[in-house]
């Protein structure tokens, strides 16, 4: 690794995605780090190029053109560290999304205890849990064995037993795994991640190491109530990264140039959400959502709890998994023009075949945004159903991922987020315009100043502070009177009716005092907090009051539905 300078000035970050490779150049402008230039190119680690170097070279060439600074020598080498002339960069970071997830089987003792923790462990990274085997499993030994042999996973997470607790059952389960390892041909045997009862760790490691590679980590369930996923997650991420090093041609060669070893996108994303979680209201927590091409992520953090969930779907090749599970009607209901479901389905399946393709027409982008809404909704439903977040109110909600952030019109971005997430209470919505968050998380491990200063820069845009009201009254009934007092003494007052969504103008960076007078039939999750005027931050879309109810119910009739969707766009001033 190249060591960083005492006062690094210029930083280059590359995100290797499974469709695009993106590069960002950061430098100090007026004593603060700023994003200088960004560029992207199709990822080239696929056949026939099979080397990421081509994409990185193309990205750097474009950044050179944009900022007029030489980053690459004539030989094609990156200039590192920067020269006194200003050419080159002082630090270089890589983050990568996952190309194909680890196929995992979890073996443990109790379904609600160790196996539940193993499930959470897999959800937190690019691991696809195919099967769980525990002591209460009703299948016979030979059926369990056949399951392991048929699935042929990349990894077996072996867990179970509190530290110093049950050992006999665990040894029996170990015998099953060891038999499967012996039966599988060498070269096709799964690796083992041991994260169970630490008393048996050395003994079982010896047993498994006769047949395969074993990694070990502290018990993910050291006591019945306690859970400790972090160390095992680090090991699991390291395994995924090993796989990426094999799959992404040229990554191993490029790694030594990096200031810190390349990291997985989810790790960087989580680090930043954790950081933000410590800065905001601990009673709420920060929610970060990132819809990628193949995978999507949701991270939640407050001062005590941090949760990361990876979803095996996205807007590129990850569409296939999403379309197989869902109903196309749930997607097409968000469209503001009449179109047969088959056309929507064909368009999305074609998008999964051609993940590089770009939505060229208004209709194509509308279909893309419709599926994004449904993906955000699926993520929220999944998180809420598993009750893993201590709060369903968030401050702020950060939207990342190129597909969400590249929507041309901020009002449409806001509506997309609100329709998908359907937040409660009062939430500021922040848009990571360049999808920087994962990369900043990777950089933050070595250069935290850059990450902090970029968060405060224009690379992140406050879409709006959203007040969400719920009521069971009929559409059109008055719900509240909102008055926004500006710093210059002016004010803006509005009546909000059930089923509507309105915007009160407040420029980004400006603050105002919001006074809400609710009718008896309406409520906001934080009613107790809003008796006093609320200090609100402005956003690109101002301060938004969403009185469409939770969950948002769309009319069955297509004509009425389209009329309503268009009305919401109109009320917010969509272009």
């Amino acid at each position, binding site marked *: 690794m190249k060591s960083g300078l005492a006062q690094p000035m210029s930083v280059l970050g590359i995100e290797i995605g499974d469709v695009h490779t993106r590069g960002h150049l950061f430098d100090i402008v007026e004593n603060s780090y700023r994003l200088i230039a960004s560029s992207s190119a199709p990822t080239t680690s*696929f056949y026939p190029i099979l080397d990421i170097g081509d994409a990185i070279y193309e990205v750097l060439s474009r950044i050179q053109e944009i900022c007029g600074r030489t980053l690459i020598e004539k030989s094609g080498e990156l200039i590192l560290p920067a020269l006194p002339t200003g050419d080159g960069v002082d630090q270089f970071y890589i983050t990568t999304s996952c190309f194909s997830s680890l196929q995992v089987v979890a073996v443990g003792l109790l379904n609600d205890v160790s196996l539940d923790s193993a499930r959470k462990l897999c959800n937190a990274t690019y691991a696809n849990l195919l099967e769980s085997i525990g002591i209460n499993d009703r299948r016979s030994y030979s059926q369990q064995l056949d399951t392991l042999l048929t699935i042929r996973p990349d990894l077996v997470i072996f867990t179970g037993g509190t530290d110093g607790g049950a050992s006999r059952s665990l040894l029996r389960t170990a015998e099953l795994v060891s038999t499967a390892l012996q039966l599988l041909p060498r070269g096709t045997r799964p690796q083992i991640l041991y994260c169970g009862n630490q008393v048996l760790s050395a003994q079982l490691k010896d047993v498994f190491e006769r047949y395969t590679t074993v990694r070990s980590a502290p018990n993910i369930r050291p006591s019945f109530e306690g859970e400790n996923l972090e160390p095992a997650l680090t090991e699991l991420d390291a395994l995924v990264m090993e796989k990426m090093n094999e799959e992404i041609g040229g990554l191993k060669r490029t790694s030594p140039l990096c200031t810190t070893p390349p990291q997985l996108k989810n790790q960087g994303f989580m680090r930043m959400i954790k950081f933000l979680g410590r800065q905001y209201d601990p009673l709420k927590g920060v929610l970060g959502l990132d819809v990628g091409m193949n995978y999507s992520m949701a991270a939640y953090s407050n001062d005590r709890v941090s949760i990361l969930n990876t979803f095996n779907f996205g807007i590129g090749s990850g569409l296939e998994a999403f379309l197989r599970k869902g109903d196309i009607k749930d997607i097409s209901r968000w469209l503001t023009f009449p179109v047969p479901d088959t056309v929507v389905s064909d368009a999305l399946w*074609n998008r999964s075949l*051609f993940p590089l393709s770009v939505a060229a027409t208004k209709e194509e982008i509308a279909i893309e945004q419709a599926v994004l809404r449904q993906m955000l909704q699926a993520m929220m439903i999944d998180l809420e159903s598993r009750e893993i977040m201590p709060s369903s109110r968030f401050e702020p909600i950060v939207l990342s991922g190129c597909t969400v952030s590249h929507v041309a019109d901020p009002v449409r971005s806001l509506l997309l987020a609100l329709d998908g997430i359907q937040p409660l209470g009062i939430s500021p919505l922040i848009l990571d315009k360049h999808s920087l968050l994962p990369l900043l998380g990777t950089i933050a491990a070595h250069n935290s100043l850059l990450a902090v200063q970029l968060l405060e820069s224009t690379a992140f845009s406050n879409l709006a502070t959203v007040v969400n009201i719920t009521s069971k009254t009929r559409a059109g009934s008055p719900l509240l009177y909102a008055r926004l007092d500006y710093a210059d003494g002016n004010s803006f007052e509005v009546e909000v009716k059930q089923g509507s969504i309105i915007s009160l103008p407040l420029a980004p960076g400006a603050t105002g005092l919001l006074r809400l007078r609710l009718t008896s039939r309406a409520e906001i999750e934080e009613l107790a907090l809003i008796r006093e005027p609320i200090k609100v931050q402005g956003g690109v879309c101002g301060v938004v009051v969403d009185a469409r109810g939770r969950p948002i119910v769309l009319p069955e009739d297509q004509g009425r539905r389209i009329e309503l969707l268009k009305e919401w766009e109109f009320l917010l001033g969509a272009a």
Partner: protein
Amino acid sequence: MNAQLTQINPLTLIHRNRLLPVPGSVNVREGQRVAPEDIVAEASIPARHYLVDVVRALSAKTLSAAEKMITRKPGEVLQKNDIIAETGGLFSRVIRTPGEGRVVSVNKGRVLIEAESTRIKMQAGLAGKVTQVIPERGATIQCYGALIQGVWGNALLGCGPLTTDYESLSGELKTSAIGVTSRGAVLAGGTCSEAFLAAAAQEKIGGLILGSISSSLISTALELPYALIILSGFGDHGMDELSRSLLATYIGRDVSINAVKWNRLTGDRPEVYIPLEGEAHAYEEQAMYTSGQTVRLQTGAYAGRIGRIESLLPGVTLLPSGLRAAAARVVFGENLREIIPLSNLDVIFSNDRFIGAPDEGGVLWH
């Protein structure tokens, strides 16, 4: 910008690796000629086991007592009703095998028997010559012929004489087109209905080549007993004129289909091979977008249509969607010109050849 390439190539050199996912045995040697259905390599994967607990079944008092009762050793092949263990003595009690199998292990008074294994057979997939044997994995097969690359397949292999007509290639395949001659044949058409897919399965066709298909038929397609390849995508746009002309030229010839799922990492993609006499160079696998290239549109209103890049537009272009992307002006037919993002274009590689007589719908390759 690196172009996305698709071959609709009338004559080229084709090399394809046919490899097992696990180690096994290779059945071919270098220089050997193979037919599409020949098994190049095979392997067996243990699939079903049963465990006989002698301690419990024969009520052995100790582990060592149970182990003495076991009459089998690892590796022994067993027939149905063979004795696995017996107590001995005047009134000996025995445990017999419920079926055929092989003893995998004898441990702690328990006998593990492999009852069944799954045989993986790797077919050649195309007619050609074995140019390289990869020990324990498979072989590389080479042939000269026409190559059409598709975008989606149902993961099966198929082969047979190409049976179609220009009308079917241009439009929807009708169930009335299926007849006695369809058995074992590869049919081709623009698109088709669910009823056609079912009727073709009844008639045991060798495979099906379609320009496009409705995405609502994906689940049905994955259950079909024959190989189905989609050349340009989902929808009702049918088959592009280049694929149509090429297939029309070779009606009656043997074709094979590898309807594998498209894997961008490895480059495996669904393909149609038509072995031909003659020699040619291997096709280009990399190119940059340039003006004059023949292209096919991947998505949108013009999905599946063939055009020509008239010019590349400088920088990035603001699209009607509001997004900005590198784009080109593409000409369709005589006069229609559209601005299309480069990312939505497949460059069609064809080795500068003329396919099919013009009166049969032949197309001049650029």
